[in-house]
C-alpha cells in the first residue's frame, strides 16, 4: 500500500448526499478479475451519456475542477460492500475523500487502499462547497500526522478523527494482512482452545 502523509490540492466538489457505491461504480463494471482500470468508470452513469460521450454538466467533465481531493455530501459510500468503489476512486487519482459522514464498509475499504476518508463538520463541508464554487482554485491541505484539514481559502482548520492503528498503517504504507500474518501463532492457539 502507498504511504499517505500530507497533501495540498484543489478539489472536485460533489454536493450530493447518500452517494451509494452503485453510483461510484455500477455493477456491470464489476466483472474484472484485477484491480486496474476502474477509474475510467468512476461515476459512469453520471459521467457519460449512453453513447459514451461525456455529460457536460457532471463535475468530473468540468475542466474547472481538478485535483486529488473529492468532496462529497453526507453519507458517502452507502450500499454495496464492493471494494471496486475504492479502487475506482483511487484509480481516478483521488487520495482523499472529504464528507460529513461516511458509510462503514466504504470507509474500511478506502483505508485498506490508501485512500483517506476525512470526516468534517457539516459547516466546514458547506464552506468548502461555497468557496470552491466561487473559486475553483481553492485548495485544501490534509495533514495526517497532525490530523488537521485546512481550507486554504479561509485559513479555517478542523481536526479529524482516525483510528491510531489505521493512521500508523497509512503513514507507513502497511496493510492489515501483514499484521494478521504476523499473528498466525495466536490464531492457532485460539483454534486449539475451541476444540
Amino acid at each position, binding site marked *: 500500500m502507498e504511504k499517505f502523509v500530507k497533501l495540498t490540492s484543489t478539489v472536485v466538489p460533489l454536493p450530493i448526499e447518500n452517494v451509494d457505491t452503485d453510483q461510484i461504480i455500477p455493477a456491470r463494471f464489476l466483472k474484472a478479475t484485477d484491480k486496474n482500470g476502474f477509474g475510467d468508470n468512476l461515476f459512469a452513469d453520471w459521467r457519460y451519456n449512453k453513447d459514451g460521450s461525456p455529460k457536460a454538466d457532471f463535475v468530473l467533465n468540468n475542466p474547472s475542477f481538478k485535483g486529488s481531493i473529492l468532496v462529497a455530501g453526507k453519507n458517502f459510500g452507502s450500499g454495496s*460492500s464492493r471494494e471496486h468503489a475504492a479502487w475506482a476512486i483511487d484509480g481516478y487519482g483521488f487520495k482523499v475523500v472529504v464528507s460529513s459522514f461516511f458509510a462503514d*464498509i466504504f470507509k474500511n475499504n478506502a483505508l485498506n487502499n490508501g485512500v483517506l476518508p476525512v470526516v468534517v463538520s457539516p459547516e466546514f463541508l458547506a464552506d468548502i462547497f461555497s468557496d470552491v464554487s466561487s473559486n475553483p482554485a481553492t485548495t485544501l491541505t490534509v495533514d495526517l500526522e497532525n490530523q488537521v484539514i485546512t481550507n486554504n481559502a479561509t485559513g479555517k482548520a478542523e481536526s479529524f478523527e482516525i483510528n491510531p492503528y489505521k493512521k500508523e498503517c497509512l503513514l507507513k504504507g502497511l496493510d492489515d494482512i501483514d499484521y494478521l500474518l504476523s499473528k498466525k501463532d495466536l490464531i492457532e492457539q485460539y483454534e486449539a482452545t475451541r476444540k
Partner: protein
Amino acid sequence: MSKTLFDKIWDAHVVSSVENGPTQLYIDRHFCHEVTSPQAFNGLRARGLRVFRPELTTMTADHNTPTIDQDQPVKDPISRNQLDTFARNAAEFNMPLYFPLGHQKNGVVHIIGPENGFTQPGMTIVCGDSHTSTHGAFGTIAFGIGTSEVEMVLATQCVLQSRPKTMRINYNGKLGKGVMAKDLALFTIAKLTTGGATGYFVEYAGKAIRNMSMEERMTVCNLSIEMGARGGMIAPDQTTFDYVKGREFAPKGEEWEQKLAYWKTLKSDEGAKFDLELDFDAADIQPMITYGTNPGMGMGIQESIPTLDQIDEAGRISFQKSLDYMGFAAGEKLVGKPIDYVFLGSCTNGRIEDFRVFAQYVKGKKIADNVTAWLVPGSWGVEKQIREEGLLDILTEAGFKLRQPGCSACLAMNDDKVPAGKYAVSTSNRNFEGRQGPGARTILAGPLVAAAAAISGKITDPRV
C-alpha cells in the same frame, strides 16, 4: 455483568486486540462469490500464500450469472471469464465447498448458506457482500466485508474490526393483516434513514419478531445494511433450532446436543446496556413501497411522497434529483400508478415463503398485459420446493414463468436488466439509480405488494 447477545458472540471470537486499534476477530464461516473474490485470490498468489482453512469457506457463483439456459456456456465473454476464474481459484486452492453454476447447491449465497445448515447460531460470518447481515437471523454476528478483507479471511481466518456500538429495536404487538417482514424492515429504514444505524450492530427484538418464521427473520436482518448498520441479529429460539436441525452441514448427535445447550444461552441478559434502544408498535406498520432512490425513501402504500418543505434544506437537492430520476412529484400518491416490471427474488425475498405468498395471491388470476415478471428462486432448493408444493402450476396458470436461481435483476450485473425509464416493483433490497439497469426506476416492496402489482399492472394495496 449482563451482556448483550452481540457482546457474547463477539467476546467469544476475539483472538487479540491491537493496541489503540481494532480487534482481531476469528471467523467461523466465510461465504465467497465470484465478483468480490478474484482480486483476493490474486493477492494470495502474489504473496505466495495458501488458504488457511479451506473447509471454512463456502463458494457459490450467483451475481454474474444468467437465470436461463444455465446448462449452456455463458454468452458474455467477460462474465464467463469471471466465472472461469472462480473455478480456477477453487481448484488451485483446493476449496472443498465450491458450488458452481448448475450444481444442485448453487444459488444466492445468503440463501444457500442457511438452507444447507452452514449458518448456525453463535457464529461469526463474513462475505464480500453487504447483505451478509441476513445470517444474523440465526443469532450470529454476520457482516459484509471488502475484497482486502476477503483476502485476510482466506489467509488467516480473521479480520480486523473495530467494535461497533449496539442498538436494540423492539417491535411490540402484532403486524396487521397483509403486513410482512419486508414492510417492517422498510418501515424501520424509512424511520432511521439510510445512514441512521451507521456504526451500530442492531438486535431486533419484541413480540412481532418472535412471531416470525426464520425466513421472515432473514428478510429483516438482510436489510440492516440499508440503514447503514454493520449488521443485524435476532436471538435464537425454538424456531431457529427447529430450522437448523437436520440440515446437511448442521451438527448431529452428541455435537448437536452440546451446541444446542450453548445456543440456548445466546440472548441479551436482562439489564444489558445498549448504546441506543428504540421501540416501535408493529400495528403502526403498513404495507410499504419506496418512492425515491435509496431504501430510506419509503412510505406506507396509501401515503403521499413528502413535500419539499418537509425535507432538510441540505438534503433538498438530493431529494429533488431523486424524484426527477423516478419521474414522481413531491406530495404525490403512488397507488394506481402503472408499472412495467415485477421482480420476485434476491437474497431479501427469494425464499420459499416469498413464493408461497406470491402464488397464493395470484392463484386463479392472470398477470396484467403491461407487466413483464421475473420470478427467480434463490436456489435450486427453493426451485424444487416450488415444484413439489404445486406452486409452479399456480404460477403457470396465472401466466408467470419461473427462471433459474441467481441474483438476477437485483443488481443489473447479469442479463436481467430493467430498461431505462421503466418502473419495476421489486422485492430486492436497493432502489439506487441504475441499480436494476441504467435509467431503471425501482419501487421496493414485499412479495405481496409485488403480486398485487403483477396482477393489476399498477401499484396496488394488496389488502383491498
